């Protein structure tokens, strides 16, 4: 019998270890798996490499993980925001390493890892400093840049609904990196608002099939990172 439902957050994130490469879903505060991240904060792990579109806001979620010193390196597309204070301090103090990747290249590298692609050529970043040191190939007269797949030990993702097989639906733009990160990690952990019986999700509407998911945990009412930032709440 397949039952990917974990009883609580602490058990759910037990796959995260010192030195893990961790993908974290979300774009801005939509889709941020805040409660899963906090459970990782509680584990007290260190030396993480985080792959995420942004670099956290305020003092909760990814920012809390950074603030606790758990992160050695972050690979992201857009680390700057009006509330990315923790990241900026750590970065300027040389306490966190940053690799900036164009957003589409980030997404495609993640998908490539999930799809068994050994690398691909993209026009994105050709002729820019981002392409420095990368292999360039001329295809049909245009410059393309070689990009390698980007995989992870663990992915932390927020979705809307799951069944015990790990089939997922998402909600609005909280979908963003979730489905591809589920594909690209050796162990994918998903927090969902609702867990429904097997068969309750229309097979036509499953966004992420359960094969890409290892652990599901219910967080019925996830916190609003936006509100937490405005209220200057911190975790822990």
């Amino acid at each position, binding site marked *: 019998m397949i039952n990917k439902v974990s009883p609580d957050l602490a058990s759910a994130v037990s796959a995260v270890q010192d030195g893990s490469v961790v993908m974290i879903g979300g774009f*801005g505060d*939509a889709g941020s798996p805040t409660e899963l991240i906090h459970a990782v904060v509680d584990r007290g792990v260190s030396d993480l490499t985080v792959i995420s579109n942004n670099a956290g806001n305020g003092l909760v979620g990814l920012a809390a993980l950074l603030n606790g010193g758990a992160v050695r390196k972050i690979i992201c597309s*857009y680390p700057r925001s009006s509330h990315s204070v923790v990241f900026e301090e750590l970065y300027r103090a040389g306490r966190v390493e940053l690799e900036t990747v*164009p957003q*589409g290249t980030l997404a495609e590298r993640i998908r490539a890892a999930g799809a068994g692609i050994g690398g691909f050529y993209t*026009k994105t970043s050709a002729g820019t400093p981002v392409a420095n040191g990368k292999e360039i190939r001329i295809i049909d007269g245009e410059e393309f840049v070689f990009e390698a797949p980007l995989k992870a030990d663990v992915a932390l993702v927020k979705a809307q609904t799951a069944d015990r097989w790990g089939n997922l639906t*998402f909600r*609005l733009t909280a979908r963003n990196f979730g489905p591809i990160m589920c594909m690209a990690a050796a162990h994918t952990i998903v927090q969902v608002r609702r867990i429904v019986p097997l068969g309750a999700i229309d097979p036509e509407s499953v966004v992420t099939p359960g094969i890409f998911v290892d652990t599901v945990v219910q967080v019925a009412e996830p916190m609003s990172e*936006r509100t937490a930032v405005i209220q200057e709440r911190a975790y822990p």
Partner: protein
Amino acid sequence: MTTFGPKGLSVPQMAWRAAQDIPDGSYVNLGIGMPELVADHVPTGREIVFHSENGVLGAGPIAGPDEEDEELINAGKKMVTLVPGAALFHHADSFAMIRGGHIDVCVLGAFQVGTNGDLANWSTGGSDAIPAIGGAMDLVAGVKRVVVLTKHVTKTGERKLVETCTYPLTGQSVVSRIYSDLAVIDVTDGGFVAVEILEGLSIEDLASLTGGPLRPAPGIVSLAPPNL
């Protein structure tokens, strides 16, 4: 505010002007900031589908107080709405639209545009700057027509239309047209060509505020936006 150069178009007027050129039925991506305003000025009767790279086609206006949903945001992280016909998808599919050449037009801001169409809009190259790229490099590499919406010069009077970009590039030879507060300028093989110019501004004055060679189009006309 414009301490250097003549008083040009207001920001809404600039956005209005850019919106006039977007054909009916276009799929359009608007950069964060000033370009977002273009959506407010789509001419009546045109149906334009707005793409937001975080996974929306058919993004509608900014959400009203009763419509706000933190899980429905645009690429600028503002809460928005969906129009009938909207679709939601994940990031790899969203950038497949961008990189695969499916988006017709994108409107971006700029730090610098070179006479050859080079665009610099992600980093001023300062050693202390935190490099943030976002989707700009993907947009310029993949979208069919890339246009720029920008003040003609910076607040401190530096030229943004330049002979050669000195800031790190976003993309090479990608910009087709520039909508500034002073003019509408095409980027051609022969450099900057003004196709519309602010009423009362001479081509010589415009050229003096432009960093690369600029010439008037044969049929150059006045840039005449409504009051906005």
